């Protein structure tokens, strides 16, 4: 029977804290950048022009249908060879995770907008509103409510995805954990503690997402 010993972890508390800080900071950055990318791509997919729709769909499918780990490695190792620009692990991680998340956010945003009944736009048009006014005042306020829960879910996934950047030497929670494990020869305790740290960050967020889903699923019929 293995004798668990969590006490020694206290000696590494600063490394842990640093890792958690990097993980959270990285998540916030890739969520914001991802939503921006997703908003642009999502609106492009609704464009009147086929070329613009095609470009956006190509981006979305490329990043949805390849593994994030492959994207990460490709952007870190292959892109610099092609472009001649040296990327730090942090930059490569930011680019890969933001673009990957953006592909999923784009689908959520596009889906949220098209889920609004076409009668809503027609009512706005019949009242003399311009397409931009309709989008801003009628469609988006309703669509954002529907998008919020899946956006939060995607962001939770993004936080977990940040653990992948440890392989390109970004000092996140998992990366620091690996250092501690090598240093202490106690991988069992270290990786268990890391799992618990992710759980402690994410459980409140999933609870919030579930609450939001319940609240917004009560639809008011037009």
């Amino acid at each position, binding site marked *: 029977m293995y004798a668990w010993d969590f006490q020694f972890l206290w000696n590494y508390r600063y490394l842990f804290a640093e890792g958690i800080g990097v993980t959270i900071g990285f998540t916030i950055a890739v969520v914001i950048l991802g939503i921006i990318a997703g908003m642009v791509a999502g609106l492009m997919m609704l464009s009147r022009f086929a070329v613009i729709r095609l470009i956006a769909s190509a981006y979305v499918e490329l990043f949805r249908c390849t593994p994030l780990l492959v994207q990460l490695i490709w952007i870190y190792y292959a892109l610099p060879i092609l472009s001649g620009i040296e990327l730090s692990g942090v930059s490569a991680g930011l680019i890969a995770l933001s673009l990957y998340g953006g592909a999923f956010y784009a689908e959520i945003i596009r889906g949220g907008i098209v889920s609004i*009944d076409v*009668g*809503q736009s*027609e*009512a*706005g*048009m*019949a*009242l*003399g*509103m*311009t*397409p931009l*006014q309709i989008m801003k*005042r*009628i469609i988006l*306020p*309703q669509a954002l*409510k529907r998008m919020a829960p899946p956006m939060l879910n995607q962001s939770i996934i993004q936080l977990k995805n940040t653990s992948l950047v440890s392989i390109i030497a970004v000092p996140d929670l998992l990366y620091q954990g690996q250092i501690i494990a090598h240093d202490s020869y106690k991988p069992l305790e270290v990786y268990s503690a890391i799992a618990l740290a992710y759980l402690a960050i994410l459980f409140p967020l999933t609870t919030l997402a579930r609450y939001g889903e319940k609240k917004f699923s009560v*639809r*008011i*019929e*037009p």
Partner: protein
Amino acid sequence: MTSEPKIEVSGLHKSFGSLNVLHGIDLTVEPGGVVALIGPSGSGKSTLLRCLNLLVTPDQGSIRIGRNRFSFGPGTAQPSKYKLAGFRANTGMVFQHFNLFPHLSVLGNIVEAPMIVRKMPRAEAEALGLELLTKVGLPDKAQEFPGRLSGGQKQRVAIARALAMQPEVMLFDEATSALDPELVGEVLSVMRSLARDGMTMVIVTHEMAFAREVADKVIFMRDGVIVEEGPANLVIDEPQNPATRAFLAHFHGKDGV
């Protein structure tokens, strides 16, 4: 009446792909006139109505409402979205499924377009909104949300919302078809009082008794053409065309017309 017609439509054509929905519609409506469009489903009556405020863009022909005129066909430019919006602001439309904005209160629904499109100050728009809610018999529902209203109440709010833009004409697209039978009356009575106040109206309807009572003119359409038109009682009670007779036979006896 000596003044020129409020609505003038000539040579209107529209097809969706290979389907010809309207071929060569001519129509005039006098100021204060009420026209009922009747006919079987697929006859093009709803498409014609939606052409009147350009929710559907005609392929060919011209439409004039008040002083605004649009021509369509080869050699004419597609109107800009600002021109379209300006044109639609002058024509109120009431939809079969109400299409109220669920995220806004009843009063919010009504003041939205006057404030956004006409740049009316909020206080003025709200005063107008309350006045219109009184007119449709719902002054106490101003702060309610649409989800809490009955179908008949929703449709009356939708009428008030359209009236808030102070349109020159009102278009009704089967405004009572989605309602439970016991709620039809309250909506028809609002429409009746609008007609009495001199609003120019075009109504797509299956309520023959109402059409005969309120409309000055009834137009029977089938397969995208006007088959028969004339004073309401003549077309409904003594249809000349066999197609009109066949169509109306479905209603005779059913609601005692």
